[in-house]
């Protein structure tokens, strides 16, 4: 039973980070009705911004963390929207989806070129150590990851539901035409969504990279898992992406512990197939029909 709780906690901690990346998929979908296939690379890149701040600019860790966060918001939020999304969106979602695939390759290869193909050590932003609670070793890192992710998600939900800006963003996501008639600055709301995605990607990056180590290829797996989490949970609901991330994190660890470590990577894919077959809107998502 101790093992079960320990694995459950590890799964939830990892899953909560997947959820942050998955929520990014949901936000971009709501703001631009498109899928950002560079989302995995969005999670990979901020860790390198932080490392660059430390190693090339000589910043102390916490300053480099803020530097990395701000740069991520600027590059992955503002620049991404202005340079890629705005010019391409008028040509339809498909062009943009293909462009994000190209962007993913560009980001990956650029990091490989400028920061080498080797994995880099990455400092833990939360304390190491553990508590022994009735035989269950509770890792401070896991608890911190879970706590930080929970604070971010709750904060985001409160922002979206309880603030005027948040409600304007939701109105823009639901019907931009009507929102504009009602006086909402739609362009600004869409920009806010991209900036929030930049923040989420950066925080996910800072939490997951100590486990994965900083490497140019990290986005491949993270992007896939976050995408699956978003679909499993419900692509159009933030709470769905959260549930999908947590579910995949727990399922992955439980499978590796109790069933098979060798085929653990197949489990999210099996789950994806099952959801698409039996509940295509996702576990917590709502149906979106296409009108003729």
């Amino acid at each position: 039973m101790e093992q079960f709780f320990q694995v459950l906690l590890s799964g939830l901690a990892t899953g909560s980070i997947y959820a942050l990346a998955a929520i990014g998929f949901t936000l971009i979908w709501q703001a631009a009705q498109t899928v950002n296939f560079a989302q995995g690379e969005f999670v990979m890149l901020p860790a390198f911004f932080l490392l660059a701040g430390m190693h090339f600019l000589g910043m102390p860790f916490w300053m480099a963390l803020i530097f990395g966060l701000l740069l991520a918001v600027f590059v992955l939020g503002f620049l991404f929207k202005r340079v890629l999304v705005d010019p391409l969106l008028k040509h339809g979602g498909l062009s943009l989806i293909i462009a994000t695939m190209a962007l993913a390759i560009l980001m990956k290869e650029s990091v490989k070129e400028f920061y080498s193909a080797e994995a880099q050590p990455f400092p833990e932003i939360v304390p190491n150590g553990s508590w022994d609670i009735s035989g269950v070793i509770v890792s401070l890192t896991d608890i911190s990851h879970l706590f930080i992710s929970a604070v971010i998600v709750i904060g985001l939900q409160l922002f979206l539901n309880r603030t005027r800006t948040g409600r304007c963003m939701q109105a823009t996501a639901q019907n931009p035409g009507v929102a504009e008639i009602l006086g909402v600055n739609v362009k600004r709301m869409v920009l806010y969504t991209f900036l929030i995605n930049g923040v989420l990607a950066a925080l996910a990056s800072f939490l997951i990279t100590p486990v994965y180590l900083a490497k140019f290829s990290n986005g491949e797996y993270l992007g896939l898992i976050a995408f699956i989490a978003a679909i499993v949970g419900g692509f159009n609901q933030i709470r769905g992406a959260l549930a999908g991330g947590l579910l995949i994190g727990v399922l992955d660890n439980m499978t590796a512990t109790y069933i098979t470590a060798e085929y653990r990577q197949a489990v999210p894919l099996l789950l994806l197939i099952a959801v698409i077959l039996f509940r295509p809107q996702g576990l917590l998502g709502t149906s979106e029909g296409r009108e003729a």
Partner: protein
Amino acid sequence: MIKKLLGATALSVAMASTAIADTVKIGFVGELSGGGAPAGTQYRDGALLAVDEINAAGGILGKQIEVSLYDTQTDPQTSRALVQKAIDEDAYVVWGTVYSSSTIVNMLVAQQNGVPQIVGAEAPNITQKGNPYVFRTAYGAHRGVPALTGYFRDTLKAKNVAVAWVNNEFGKGGHDVFIKEMAKVGINVTADIPSEAGAADFAADVSRIKEANVDAVFVYLHEEESARFLREAKKQNLQPKLVGEVTLTGQKVIDLAGDAANGAVAHVGLTAEANIESIKEFGAKFEKKYGHKTDHNGIKGYVAAYATKYVTEMNGSFDQEKFAQTMHGLTLDVAKYPGMLLTTSWDQDGELSRESFMVEVVDGKQVVTTTVAAN
């Protein structure tokens, strides 16, 4: 005028031919990106350091070494195509690959073309397939892992152990030898935990090892995975001794794992921390040139280059078949051949023999605890 032009052209062609003839091409086929990059780039850097030295000293038989780099991206099929490409581009010898799962695939290409190949790979079956052109720069796992048996039995007095291994050619080779060795001395392997190459999350693996309640753990993973495993082991406060063969205590692993690497023990064929003057000198040169420390793969690359020089000069020609013949049963004494760093022998299968070391990571550094005689 036309005569002058023709004369100048002929002279240029002649000069170009002379320039081409004054170099010998080597194909470096290695893991320069992908999961194997920590190993492949070290192997490359060690080899290129040696090439600079050899070229500065006049090259091989008066010819400068020209190295072409081919990145396998840690993909076996790509490595196979690149070995062919290197050979098509007239490589005299191929250096690499380091990953066994690539080497086992691409060495057939070198063999079919009669091109000697000096590899960093350690899976036992590489030298057990009757390939007369493949030569190691480090022990195969079937030579290295048995050196740990006594450590598990006598030093740790282990009764039950776990093995965490990467499920590919490299890992399977070490895993199979380890299982046999433990059976020989009556130690139970109570947790047998494979993981995929490139695995990032070892929480479940470590948890299973904790549940198995073992006395020690044999960790046979690649560099990055070893670092992730060590970090997770520290996070979950895993108590049993972590023991590895070569990679677990490599410099790259120590860099990546930080203080989580402290206390890990391994048998290593090569270490820059060995108290041997030639290796220390090499380590200092490497660090000066690249700004970071070498690991065993850097040393492998270095000796691959020098072995190529010494054997070719022994033969007095760039004859590839003769090269392979000379290598079989050869011993290069470090007193006469200092580039080898340690006296090194190859048997009739291309398997290597030389002194090796038991090391422990203390305060982020490898510390040699015992020297193991050549076997």
